[in-house]
């Protein structure tokens, strides 16, 4: 539940990845800008894939009396 605000979210990274790809597709940028965009795209891809690879799903049940979560039995 804790959200590191410094880290870019999956959703944003994916949107950026798609945006960068579209911009490259348009082909209206210089070679230098293209390379920069490409690097950016790869960076965003890595953010996305890292998030998916590091996934560690938790399923917790709230205990009203203990006022805390516990693992599912």
């Amino acid at each position, binding site marked *: *539940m*804790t*959200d590191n605000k410094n880290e870019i*979210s*999956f*959703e944003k990274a*994916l949107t950026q*990845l*798609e945006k*960068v*790809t579209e911009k*490259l*597709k348009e*082909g209206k940028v210089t*070679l230098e800008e*293209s*390379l920069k965009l*490409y690097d950016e*795209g*790869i960076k965003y*891809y890595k953010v*996305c*894939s890292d*998030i*998916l690879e590091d*996934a560690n*799903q*938790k*399923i*917790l*049940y*709230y205990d*009203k009396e203990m006022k805390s*979560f516990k693992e*599912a039995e």
Partner: protein
Amino acid sequence: MKLKALNVSQVNNYIKRILQSDPVLTNISVKGEVSNIKYHENGHVYLTLKDSTSKLNCFISFENNRYLKYELENGMEITVSGYISVYEKYGSYSLNVLDIIVEGKGNLHIAFEKLKEKLKKEGLFDASQKKELPFFPKSVAIVTSASGAAIKDILMTIKKKNYYVNIYVFPCLVQGNYASKDISGVLEHINKHYPDIDIIILGRGGGSMEELWPFNEEIVARSIHASTIPVISAVGHETDFSISDFAADVRAATPTAAADIAVPNLFELSRNMKKVKKDLNTIMYQIIEERRNKLQKHNFEVITSLLKHQIRNLQLYCNQYHNDIYTVLREKMNHYKNEIEKRFAVLEHLNPEHILKRGFAALINKNDSFVKSIEDVDIGDDVTIVLADGDLSGRIINKKHKDCLNNKNPVEKERKNDG
């Protein structure tokens, strides 16, 4: 015979026994218009049911009133069922109401419609009130019974397509009189203590309308509306519509559908991501190739070959001209050659030797000049007679002028000799 007089209480007690043992009166259904309704502070409700000619006192006890989900009003057409009870103290009887049906519908339906209309008027269900669900939630709260079918369906559905999202289950009552308060409390608790949760799924599996009722209560609707976290409502089956559904940001037909709506399919997402990355690589490769091609168009070898090609073209051009000029000259030369030959033929034709061959002779005097007139020689002069095949030597022995020849033409004379 005079009957023994009974006291009042005995009579009322007797009437009570008669009425309360009658098979019709112990389980009776009566329809009429509500009038004179009184809500007592102890929770009992008193009303008079009437038609055009008669009235019947009715009583709804606190216990039964609790199940009444809406307020009765004077003038409503209702059908009540219950039993006749007698109040001995006042010698009166009334209908003890156990259930009420309004205008042919059960009271739950009426309550549902009334609350729906009320909240709709308040704008609780407006599209502008709906929050958007995040596309990629990190955490989902599930508010339902810990033991029901719903939680199993939801967990299974989420786990099948999403191995990332954290799931927080908040068990609560989902039926019975205390459920609505419990649900409302849990919703508030989550919003207050766990505001980072991205989506709340609220719901339960199928059941009767009574069982699903907590999800039609105002308190639940208001808590859903107040939630800053988006709420997906999933109550019962596809055909069950609840007030919760209307108040929620998204209605799901079933708990399974709610789980499906809440989280994205990571396998699909991962596939798409890889495809986009592949596209990115392909496009970048294309861009570089394009530039490389452009560059190659301008390198030394290409320029050299380009120049060579140009030179070759110029050479061909020159050759062509050369050929053209040669052709023109040759034509001109032929022309002159023909002209010369033609003139030569004419000249040949005029050659005096031809004349000699035809039998004419030329005379040359001592001065080596052609004799053209008799004046060019004198009698006794030696002359040379030139014929075609040789020369003769002769001497002039006579001279006669043309006028003295009597028109005797030597040519004509010669022709006569031939004939």
